[in-house]
């Protein structure tokens, strides 16, 4: 592949917001996007006149299947009063949000627009578990992967089996990722699961006692996580707490051409690197223990940004499953192959570690409304880099950050690098 080329002009984020993530029976994706849009508007330091917005990109995986509603982008534009600006939906499975950001960047760099809104939305909880499983399955290479019985937990479980075989990891190691991400989410008021696993376990015990049932005898969260009644196996070696939840949510970021950023804020976050790559079906890759598209996308993004993995202060990575975070941390070059699970065990990726990952709680605990997740990652780095992440704020100068957004098992990956300059 050819080398990354520089953008024709620079792009910065000047506003970012998200809806509460969770399960909301009365809200459709429009309602969720209105929430995210209002939050984004509030975050623009010098105020936002919505009529300055020239174009909208929307990341959305499949409102078609989840809500019987396609053609999402103009509907979302209209819901926040932006008709007749161009409104374009971008789909790359769970990487839809990351791809939407990238289209926003290109639209500005192309010279066509100065001010572009990027949104992501997914309303998933109207379907039952089987319906969600079937809908997510359409992100795979359906004719050649699905007849084998694979589900998405199953695909990542197969990657985990290969990783365990190759590097000696045990299923228990993955629990460190879940514990960390729930810890982070417990400090994020927008998270779906804003509780630590300890609190979750205590809640289960209290609920059992209240109902007059025998109280579970878990003495630590490790007991709980090893117990099939607390943490049932979904696709061996992955259990319930290795999997991100089914979520309703939306997110929005406002991108502007650098030459106009000071109209909106004196504290912009620059997007200095953007990489994207495609990948074949999981079975058609040289190894199962890494995601080639993620490595390619990261290489491109670093190249454009002129930095290396070690320069990154924090990263939001695509932890749809705990094993995905481990592999991501290696694909991105943070740790050598086979070392990612040890870094999680050693606290290196914790909020106060050397390389904090998923300070938001990640897809795992913040929630994973698939088309919104990539945009919500950018919302987190915007807040962290500007020192606005509240109780979960990372200490020190968060001047370089990264987001890593994967579609399916890695048929799509988008990586972005962000810089704060003042």
């Amino acid at each position, binding site marked *: 592949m050819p080398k990354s080329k520089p953008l024709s002009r620079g792009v910065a984020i000047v506003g970012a917001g998200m809806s509460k993530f969770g399960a909301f029976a009365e809200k459709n994706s429009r309602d969720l996007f209105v929430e995210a849009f209002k939050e984004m508007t509030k975050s623009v330091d010098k105020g936002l006149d919505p009529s300055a917005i020239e174009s909208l990109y929307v990341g959305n995986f499949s409102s078609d299947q989840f809500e019987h509603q396609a053609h999402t982008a103009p509907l979302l534009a209209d819901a926040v009063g932006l008709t007749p600006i161009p409104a374009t939906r971008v789909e790359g499975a769970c990487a839809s949000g990351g791809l939407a950001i990238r289209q926003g960047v290109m639209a500005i760099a192309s010279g066509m627009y100065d001010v572009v809104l990027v949104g992501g939305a997914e309303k998933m909880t109207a379907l039952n578990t*089987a319906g969600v499983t*079937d809908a997510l*399955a359409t992100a795979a290479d359906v004719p*050649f992967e699905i007849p084998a*019985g694979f*589900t998405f*937990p*199953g695909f990542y479980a197969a990657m985990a089996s290969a990783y365990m075989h190759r590097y000696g990891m045990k299923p228990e190691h993955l629990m460190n990722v879940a514990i960390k991400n729930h810890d982070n989410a417990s400090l994020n008021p927008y998270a779906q699961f804003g509780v630590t696993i300890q609190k979750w376990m205590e809640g289960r015990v209290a609920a059992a006692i209240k109902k007059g049932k025998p109280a579970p005898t878990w003495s630590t969260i490790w007991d709980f996580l090893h117990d099939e009644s607390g943490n049932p196996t979904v*696709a061996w070696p992955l259990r319930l707490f290795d999997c991100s939840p089914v979520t309703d949510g939306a997110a929005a970021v406002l991108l502007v051409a650098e030459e106009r950023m000071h109209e909106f804020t004196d504290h912009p976050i620059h997007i200095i690197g953007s990489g994207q790559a495609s990948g074949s079906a999981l079975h*058609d890759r040289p190894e199962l223990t890494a995601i080639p598209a993620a490595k390619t996308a990261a290489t491109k993004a670093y190249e454009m940004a002129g930095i290396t993995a070690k320069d990154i202060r924090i990263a939001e990575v695509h932890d749809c499953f705990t094993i995905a975070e481990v592999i991501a941390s290696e694909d991105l070059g943070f740790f050598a192959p086979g070392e990612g699970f040890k870094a999680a065990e050693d606290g290196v990726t914790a909020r106060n570690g050397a390389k904090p990952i998923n300070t938001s709680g990640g897809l795992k605990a913040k929630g994973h409304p698939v088309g919104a997740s990539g945009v919500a990652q950018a919302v987190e780095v915007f807040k962290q880099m500007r020192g606005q992440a509240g109780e979960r704020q990372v200490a020190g100068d968060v001047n370089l950050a990264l987001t890593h957004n994967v579609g399916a098992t890695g048929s799509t990956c988008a990586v972005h690098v962000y810089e704060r300059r003042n």
Partner: protein
Amino acid sequence: MSEETTTIRPFSAAAFNQYIAEHKLMATRCTKCSKTYAPPRAICPNCHSEEMEWVETSGKGKLAGFTVIYTGPTFMSEQGFDRKNPYISGIVELEEGTSISARITGLDASKPAEIKIGTLLSVDFVEFGEGEAKKTYLAFKA
């Protein structure tokens, strides 16, 4: 297994599935660079040639990755699988150097920790449904 070569059928999912229904695991081979692909390809990703041919695989391979699934898609539930009766899905590397997703049979789904990556497997075909609704699934057995 004998190698059957034909260029009559298109290099499509429909043709591949028709072969599966006939209990044949067929691959496509690039006539220019000789690389073999199962699932089939109409254009060679290695050399961009559009000249492919169908070849029958040996049906031998080894387990590259697997999982035991407790919560399956709707069609697997309909086939009787659930939390109490989980099933194995895997990725199989064929002798021909190409890999494919398949159901895995002949291993104990209740003891996943004892299933070994690298286990030798041979092709198998699992059928479900009757008459018009009969569907054949690619499987590999230990």
